[in-house]
Structures are given as C-alpha cells and as structure tokens.
C-alpha cells in the first residue's frame, strides 16, 4: 500500500489531505515541522512526501535537502505545497529537491491525482 508523508504546520492542511488520501486507500503519516519530517522519512520510508515550506524548527527547503541526502529517498517524489507563490521561490524549491511545486490554495483532488500518478508503478517517475 502506498504511503505518503504529509508535512505542514497548519493542522487543517494535514487533516484535509489525510482524509482525501485515506479515502483513496493511501496510508498517511504526518509531521508538523521539517525536523520531524526528516525523522519520519527515515523511519516510515514513505513513497511520496508532501512538504510545506514555512514551518518552525526546520523549514521545508532544508528538510527536502536533508531527505535527498539519503540515497533511499533520492528518487522519492516530493510535492512542495506552499503559500510562497513567486517564480524565484519555485526555483528555490526545485533546487532543494522538490519534484512538484504547488502553491496554496490548492485542490485536494489535484493532489490526489498527482500522488496516484507518481505512485503507480507505470507512471512513477519524475515529471
């Protein structure tokens, strides 16, 4: 079963995505900051990570970089889901290792579709 790690300091974002993904039969783990996320990425070995940027303790960018240093996660799709909507921000995110960059507000439907695309054995590559 596909496992997704959701990292966000806003509880309602986690709640919303967890409900959406679980309804689709995807298992979900969540973290409220980057530091926690790096730990969970190691222990839970998720197939996909949805990462916020602006978070206390450790932000999403640093977390992405940290996760990518782990060879196990070198190819793991990371969807950066953030309120920072500038072009420069997107480049920063992708440079840090994000596979997708989606700005808030977002459509849970679209996230689900993206997660499914990424995790199906045939289409599971980087876009």
């Amino acid at each position: 079963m596909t496992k997704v790690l959701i990292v966000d300091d806003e509880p309602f974002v986690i709640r919303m995505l967890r409900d959406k993904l679980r309804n689709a039969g995807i298992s979900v783990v969540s973290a409220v900051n980057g530091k926690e996320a790096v730990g969970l990425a190691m222990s839970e070995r998720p197939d996909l990570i949805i990462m916020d940027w602006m978070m206390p303790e450790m932000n999403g960018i640093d977390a992405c970089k940290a996760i990518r240093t782990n060879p196990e996660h070198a190819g793991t799709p990371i969807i950066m889901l953030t309120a920072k909507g500038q072009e420069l921000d997107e480049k920063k995110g992708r440079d840090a290792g994000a596979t997708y960059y989606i700005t808030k507000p977002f459509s849970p439907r679209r996230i689900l579709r993206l997660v499914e695309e990424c995790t199906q054995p045939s289409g599971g590559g980087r876009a």
Partner: protein
Amino acid sequence: MKIRSPKRLAAKILVLFMALSVVPALFFGARLVLMASSHLDKDVNVWTKLEPAYAEHARTFHDGMKERLRKEIASFALYGSFIAAAAALFASGLLLRPLRKLTEGVRHIGSGNLHYRLPVQGNDEFAALSRAFNAMADSLQKRNDELGRKERYIEKMLDPMWVLDAGNRIFDVNPAFTKLFGHRKDEVVGRDAREFFDNANLPVFDLQMREKRERGFADVYELSIVCRRGNNIPVLISCSPIMENGRAAGEIGVFKDISMRKELEDDIVQKNKELYALNTIAAITSHSLDLIEILRNTVKEAIAITGMDAGGIYIADHEARELTCAGHVGVPEQFVARMQSFKFGEDLPGLVVITGDTVAVSNVSRDPRIFRHAVQETGMKGYLCLPLKSKDRVQGILCMLSAEEHLFTGSELEFLESVGHIVGVAIENIKFYNRERSRLTGLVDLEKNRAEAILSSITEGVYTTDRDLRITYWNRAAEEITGFRACDVVGRTCREVLAHEDEQGERLCRDRCVMRRGNNGGEALHVLCPTAGGEKLPTALTSAPIRDASGEETGRVNVFRDITRAKEIDRMKTDFVRTVSHELRTPLSAIVGMTEMLMDGEIREDKAAQEYLETIHTEGQRLASMVEELLDIARIESGRQEIRKQAVTVQPVVENCINLLKGRIAAKNITVTWQGPSGLPPVSADREKLHQVVFNLLNNALCYSDDGASVTIHGARRDDALALTFEDTGWGIPEQDLPHIFKKFYRSKPHARRVKGTGLGLPLVLEIVKSHGGSIDVQSAPAKGSTFTVTLPLAEDEMKKRNNESGNGSIGA
C-alpha cells in the same frame, strides 16, 4: 741752387767791366805821358846843348806840352772811365731787362692776375723762359678757372655744407650753412663740430664719426644742429670722409633741412594720436555701459593727447540745473571739493553748459573773461571747457587744465569737439540704458525672486549647468540632499561634483553622461548620486536643456530627487504584498480545499463535516480580519480614521483580549498576568481601537516570546493619564531595529524569519494612540524582553475640559 740777385749781378758786371776797361786805359795813358815827358826832356837837353837860347824856349814849350798831355790823358781817362761805366751800365741793363720782365710776370701771377703773359721776342734763352712762363701761367689759369667754378658751385649750393678736419674741427662752411644755421663762416671755422649738437644729438654724432670715419665710407644720418639763435634744426647729414693715404683726414658733411618733413611727420603723428584717442574713446563708449568708467577714461585720453595736466568731467542734470563732477584726473587735492559741482550759469562750466560753445583759454591769468574762479587759484594756465553734446542738448562738460600756457590749435579743438560729441551721445545712451535697465531690473528681480523662492522651497534638488557642464546654480534642496554647499560646487563641473553612477554602480559621466542623453528631459533616470558624506544616494534625475533665443542649447537644468525613501517604501510594499499574499493563501487553502472535499462528498461523517465547516469559518474570519487590517492601514495612510471616543474602563478590554488569545497562551504555556488597582479611572477612547491596541501588544508579546515566558500587563494612573504597560520576558528587539519598529511594514529580521506577520501591528497601534492624544514608549533588550508603555488621557479630564468649554461657552452666550 743759390739764386743771385740780378741787381747785384749787374753791379758786379759793372765793376768788372770798369776794372777791365778803365785800369788799362789809365795804365797806358800814364805810360804815354811818362814816355812823352822823357822824350821831351831829352829834346830839351839836346836843345840846350845845341842852342841854349832855344833851350829855354824849348823848355817852356815842352813844359806846356807836358802839361797839356797830362791834361789830355787825365780827361781821356776820365772820359774813358765814364764811357766804360756807361757801357757797363748799358750792358748790365741789357742783361737785367728780361729778368725784370720775368719778375714782373711772376708778381702778376702771384697777385692773382693769371691773364698776364710775357712778350716773346726772338729765339734766345729769354724767349724760351718767357714761353715756359706763359705755359705755366696758362695751366695755372686753367686750374684756377676750374677751382673758381667749383668754388661757385659750393657758394651757390642750396644745401649747407661743412668740411671737418681729422680732429672734427670745422675747416670750412658754405653760405647755405650760414643761411640755415645763422653761424657765420668766420665764427665757426676752427671750432669743434661737436659744439653744434645738443646733449641728445651728440652721442649720435660721436658714434657716427667714430664708426663711419674709421671704416671710411659715406653715410646719411639724422640729427639736429643747434642754430645761432639756440634752437635746433632737424637735418639729414650726408657725410663723406676725406681719405688721404688710406686714412680719414677729415669729412665733408652736407645737410638737408628736414624740419618741414619733421613738422609734417609730427603733424601726422599727432593726427594719428588723435585718431587713436578718438577711436579709444569711441571703443570705450560703445563697449562699456559704466558711465563713470567711460568718463574717467575719456578724461585720461583727452589729457594724454593734448598734453595737458589735469581734467575733470561733469554730467549735466537739466532738471536740477546742476553740473556734477563724475571723474577727474590730476586736479590738485585741495580744489577737488570746490570743483565738485556747479550750478548752471556758475563759473565757466556753468556758462558753457548753457551756451554750448567751447571755451579755450591759453592763459587763465591773462584772460579778462576768467576772474574769481577756482581755476585761477590752482595756478593752472591753460584752460578748456568743452561741452559734451548729444543730438539736442549738452550732456556734460569736459574741463582740462595745463600748468603751462597752452595754445589750442584749430585741429586740436576740432579733435576735442569730436570727442565731446562722442561722449555726449554715449552719456545720453547710458542714461537711457540705465533708465530702461532699472525698469527692467525691477521686473527681472521680481521674476528672479519668484523663481528663487520656488527653487529654494521645493524639495527636489535643482541645479543648472552651463555649456561646459559647469554648475551655475545649486538650490537648497540640492544642498540638503547631497550635503554639498552651493558655494562649494558652483563653478565646478558636475563631473567633479556629481560623478553619477547607474544602479549597477557604473560611471555615467563621459560617454553616458546624463546631460548628453535625452534632450527633452522627459523620463527620470535612476542614478546613484554621491554625497558629501561619501555615500551613494539613489536619486531620480531629469535633465532638460536651456535654450537661448536662437534655440541653441546654452546649458541644462537638472532636477533630482532622493528616492531612498521611495525605494524603501517600494521594497516594503513588495514585501508587504508578498507577506499579505502569503498570509491570504493559507486561510484560502482551508476554504477552497475543504469546500471542494465537502462538495466531492469525501466527508461522510457529520462530526467531521462539522469540523470542516468550523475550520472554513475560522479561516474565513481570519481572512476578513486581515482585510480589515489592510483597510485600517489604508485609512491611516489616507489620514481618515474615524474615532468614536467614550469613557472606557481598561480592565475588561484587557481581559477580553487575554480571553481571545487564550489558545495561543495555552499552546505556548505563557503566563499572562493583569496587575491593576481596582478603581482605575476610565480612559477616553474608542473601545474598538483600544481593543486593537491591547490585542496587538499582547499578541506581539506572545508571538515574540519562547514557550513558558511570562507577560505582565500593568495599569496605573500617571498624573492626568493612564499608563498601560506590557512587559514580557521574550526575545527582545535588536538595538538597531528599535528606532524602526513603528514604521509601516518594518519587521525586525530575526523576528520575521520566525513569526508570520504583516509589519502593520505596531504602526497601527502608534497611529491609534496618537489619534487618541496619547503616546507610546518602548524599552527592550535582546534575550531579556520588551516593555511597551501606552499612555492615554483619562475620560474625566476630557469630560471636564469639554464641560469647561461648553460652560464658558454658555457664560459667554
């Protein structure tokens, strides 16, 4: 050879001749007598012997015979001697006659009668001598005639001439010399030629003599000879050395009188000087509009050209009927004051200004027209009063004085009158110009002052440059913006002062000079402008050409503005928009995402659906408050803030805020304490605004503190106001940020990294407090905490004040 006198020769011949003729005659006569006597004696003796009678008789006879014989011999000797003497005399006479003739001839020739000739007779030695003598006389006469002719030439010569010997003494002069110089020949011959030169000419003469004579060639030079009367006559001397055996034995000098030429030359020089002076005066009058300068220079020129000693120039004021001195040169100090001004009709200048006729007096002391005048007291003699006439009236008077008698020539007066006319016209022109100028200057000054006022009051830096980009004007704002004083930059090129750089820091002067680009001065260029403090200030610069009447660019006017603040605000606004958009995106995520989920029917449980709706609602409200806050800012910025003041008790407001922030307080485990006496007087405030203040300050204390910190809110009466203090043990504010925390959009960097915010909380608080007539104060130390103290006026004082006002109003009514 010793020449014997012919007379003595003749005497000797005579004596010789007599000796040779008389002595033998006497000898032979004596012998004859002796012989006859002896013969007769013998005869007697015979007769005595033979006939003694007879002897006696014979003796007597014989004695008579002897006696007669002696007598005959004696007379013979006497006659013979006489004849001999006569013959000798005749012979010597024959011998002496040609000699006498020769002597006479020589005497004639010697006395100058060169026409005398000796008669030539026969073919003897005398004839030959006479012929030789005559030939000599012919040759002499020929030479003499020639000399006479030459003498006549010299006598008739028109040019004076002298002949000098080797010692420069005069050997000869001709009548023309006497005629020209007055020196008679007998007076000058033998005198040193150097006596005839004055000190000025002598060195020239000496030099000429030395050089020319030594080298032995003729030359012509110009000198002046001192005449008998003592005056000098300029001459041209053609001098030729007289060479003897290769040495100069003297010199012939022929003079050419050049006094006429000199006079003409002097005349021409004088005319030239006059023309030059006229030209100078005309140039001064046409190029200068400074009346005093023109007049002073005119006086100077006129004095210089006429050779007079002093002068003054007066300007006529026809309304006051007065002449006023505008300038003077060389006037004795003690008379300057007396000659400062004259009424019309007073003194000579006063008369001339009325008559308009020049008065020239060669000697003041001898002129009956001049009396009791200051001029006489100066001791001056020559005096001239010249009217300076323009077209229709006398504009002024030029007075000139000379220490010595001055004879004014016609041409001099003519010249001076031309000067008078030029200066008169100039004075009129200048008067007209000055009238017009003062009128226009008034207008221009007004315009200038207006422009000056505008330029110094505007906040934009304005400077003007000339064609060479030299700064010609620098306004006050330019001083304030750059720190360069006008007095330090005016006159320097803008390249020296303002080495503009573009925003990338590249030099714009030279090829990319702001002034040289874009002539219309439309769009502002953003350039970095150096300041006195060495900073580089971002400025917006526009540059426009200043054109003269012909449309040619004579300079530029440049306007610049410090855009540091504008850029800062710009940056802050960008940051604000980014922050706001970020802050808006998060609550929107809840609304958009959760409604989508609900619509998709993903949430089946009622409880979950309920929770979703609550979140949507909360986030919706968050959005609304943000919009409200933005609107508040907009209101603050536009200065429209509606405040409905009333008496508000602080404590419930504080408690309400604590209650509202309960969630955050709990989450961060922060202790919030209210410390206020129970009977705190109410403040005069808009309840909503007061709430905003308390909420923001408390929220800040919570946000910028670590978990477990404590926040204490004090309330206390301080004089006529209430002080609300928010004291936290949070992060504190870095010292460099402290002065800026009340600026809109400003956020301390370390705080901004850790806490979401708009940068509008504190500015909003400040604006509200200020609008209530209160104040806010902050004290903070990093890692120790911050203390914000808000002071608000008490409601009772406000009421009292208002009551007093209305009470006074009613009494007054």
